[in-house]
């Protein structure tokens, strides 16, 4: 039976729900464009969620103004994944979220006022720390007990899913809501610009001419249940999370190794954990940020693992932008949808293969594909590499 996924929720630049995201993916419709809501940044393009904080607060029925956009986006996706499930005194339930910047979207506004002595609102800082973003979501959903937050930069969301699966298998929890959330902020946009990997054009993952990433924002959540929980809830599994691994690249603080060491280890170990053969992987949802470094290193890792038989692969970041800690969770939801609806998503903006590796991603939407196992990669700063394997529920 393993660890089952029984609920999914997502919010991103391409939609406020699973249904909206799915139809945008089917239609090849990207959410990347000029910023409408976040003020004062130098980014020409980003994957912004098409709702103001006020819209989100209103639709989520959150009274207080002291709530970060990261919490609001997280709550939006977490509520959808949680669905009509009830609290239970018998089912040990937990929540694990992931975020890279927590409430930075509000803290940076505070800090600007603080620097100019323009009556800064210190109360805003109670929403700053990453843990508080998860505590907020937990409180809104009525979940208490195991409440945790992971922060490993761009692999955080995948790591939350991995930790949740392990907690169920070890019998610490019966069911756990896992995911990740990050809001766009001036801090991260300036950060990636300072690294000179923010593309002012629309990002082009796995293309020879790729010149960097576009940041995005959003959240993804999945409800994981073990056998005991399923018996009590009667929920129908959508699919399984069967494989997971995290490995350190230990090469450089931000750059990935040219030999793809950490990524190779993560992919190999996740597939081994899933107990499936390499030829059984139907589709790879790649990390594929569009930076020179990542896409090269990831291509090398795919070659290391699969040799000449690399499964169809694509990056969906040209749809959503790179949503940092949310990416692994959003793409996990996309992976589940790929299995559920027999889809392979197109890698937008691809023209020419990377000269050194020659890998060609899937560029057209494939419907009716036999998708039984999906590998999803998430690689982050600090050489933090994570891979997950989702399989059809039998």
């Amino acid at each position, binding site marked *: 039976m393993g660890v089952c996924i029984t609920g999914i929720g997502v919010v991103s630049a391409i939609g406020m729900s699973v249904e909206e995201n799915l139809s945008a993916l089917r239609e090849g419709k990207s959410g990347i464009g000029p910023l409408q809501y976040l003020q004062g940044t130098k980014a020409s393009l980003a994957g912004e969620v098409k709702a103001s904080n006020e819209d989100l607060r209103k639709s989520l029925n959150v009274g207080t103004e002291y709530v970060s956009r990261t919490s609001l986006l997280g709550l939006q996706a977490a509520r959808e994944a949680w669905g009509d499930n009830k609290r239970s005194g018998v089912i040990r339930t937990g929540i694990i979220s992931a975020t*890279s910047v927590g409430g930075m979207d509000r803290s940076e506004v505070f800090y600007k006022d603080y*620097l100019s002595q323009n009556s800064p609102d210190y109360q805003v800082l109670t929403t700053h720390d*990453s*843990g508080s973003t998860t*505590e907020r979501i937990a409180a809104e959903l009525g979940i208490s007990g195991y409440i945790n937050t992971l922060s490993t930069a761009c692999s955080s969301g995948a790591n939350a899913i991995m930790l949740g699966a392990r907690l169920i298998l070890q019998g610490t929890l019966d069911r756990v809501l896992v995911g990740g959330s990050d809001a766009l902020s001036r801090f991260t946009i*300036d950060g990636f610009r300072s690294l000179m990997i923010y593309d002012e054009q629309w990002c082009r993952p796995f293309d020879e001419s790729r010149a960097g990433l576009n940041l995005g924002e959003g959240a993804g959540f999945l409800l994981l249940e073990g056998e005991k929980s399923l018996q009590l809830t009667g929920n129908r599994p959508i699919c399984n999370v069967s494989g997971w691994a995290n*490995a350190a690249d230990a090469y450089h*603080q931000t750059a990935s190794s040219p030999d793809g060491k950490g990524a190779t280890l993560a992919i190999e170990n996740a597939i081994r954990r899933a107990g499936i053969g390499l030829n059984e992987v139907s589709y790879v949802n790649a990390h594929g940020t569009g930076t020179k470094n990542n896409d090269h290193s990831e291509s090398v890792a795919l070659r290391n693992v699969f040799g000449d038989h690399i499964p169809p692969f694509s990056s969906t970041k040209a749809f959503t932008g790179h949503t940092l800690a949310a990416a692994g969770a959003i793409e996990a939801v996309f992976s589940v949808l790929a299995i559920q609806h027999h889809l392979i998503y197109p890698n937008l903006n691809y023209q020419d293969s990377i000269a050194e590796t020659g890998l060609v991603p899937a560029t057209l939407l494939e419907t009716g594909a036999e998708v039984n196992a999906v590998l999803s990669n998430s690689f982050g*700063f600090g050489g933090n590499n994570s891979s997950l394997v989702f399989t059809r529920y039998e």
Partner: protein
Amino acid sequence: MNKAALYITAASTVSHQPTFGNPGFSSTLGPIVADNALISPDYKAYIDPGLLRRMSKILRMAVACSKDCIAQAEIEQPDAIVVGTGLGCLHDTEKFLNTSLTVDGLLPPTSFIQSTHNTMAGQISLSIGNHGYNMTHTQNTLSFEHALLDASMLLREGDRHVLVGAADEHIDILEDIAAQLSFEAPARLTSGASFFVLSKENRGNAAAILTDVHTTGGIENAEAEIDAFLIRNGLNASDVDLVFHAGEPVQGVKGNVPYLPLSGVYATASAFALHYAVDSLQTNASLKNVLICNALRKSNLGLILLQSVEA
């Protein structure tokens, strides 16, 4: 729950007290006072000078403690590195925030790179060339307990040695924020880092047994939670020789010691308490069961149960 014993085979702390490289420190510490500054070891003995120059306080503390632990445990590599931090790399976060708001044009990226919460775990893996599981937990005052729970799970999944620790750093603006938010700290705000090697076997070098670790967020009844925790470990309150606590003392046990006056206040001060407890178990043979009860933030409860190796 019947679980195999796990062993603490190394411990290292940088704090405002003489804790680093000083076994037996627990019998000599008094409460920290205003002029107790952070006591830094000779970082050059642990960190490459080129890297050291760019490292903030929290990174230096974390990497030095980690290397000290690996040397103490006499292992080549841990199988995994797990770190907890409440507020992360504050110095670099504030620095980049400041730069991004005040500087036009090209920004230097170093402080952005070093602002992410997992910079510590990443730097540790880099500095020792470790390719294992690498994780960072950041759950407010329970960040360390969550890291310790993760490390325990890894050992039950087959790992032999896990490097696990926590760190938080003080920056000046925290004083202003604490005052403005009327945060009544039970002691002064400080910095600290404590790291440990948690091992599956005792190769004759175990300092303590980690019996159990538990976290609860959004807690309603702490007393009931503590009772249930002790019961699942086959203990009554009267079996507990000493409790190191932040928040209320625990009723019915043989002794209570508040640890925040010793460590100062930071989100992961319970890691300091763990080292303090491990050191106490080694220096005081009359101690058998020791509990660390962390309610630094009232809605969150962290429990760590230790046993002496000879018990």
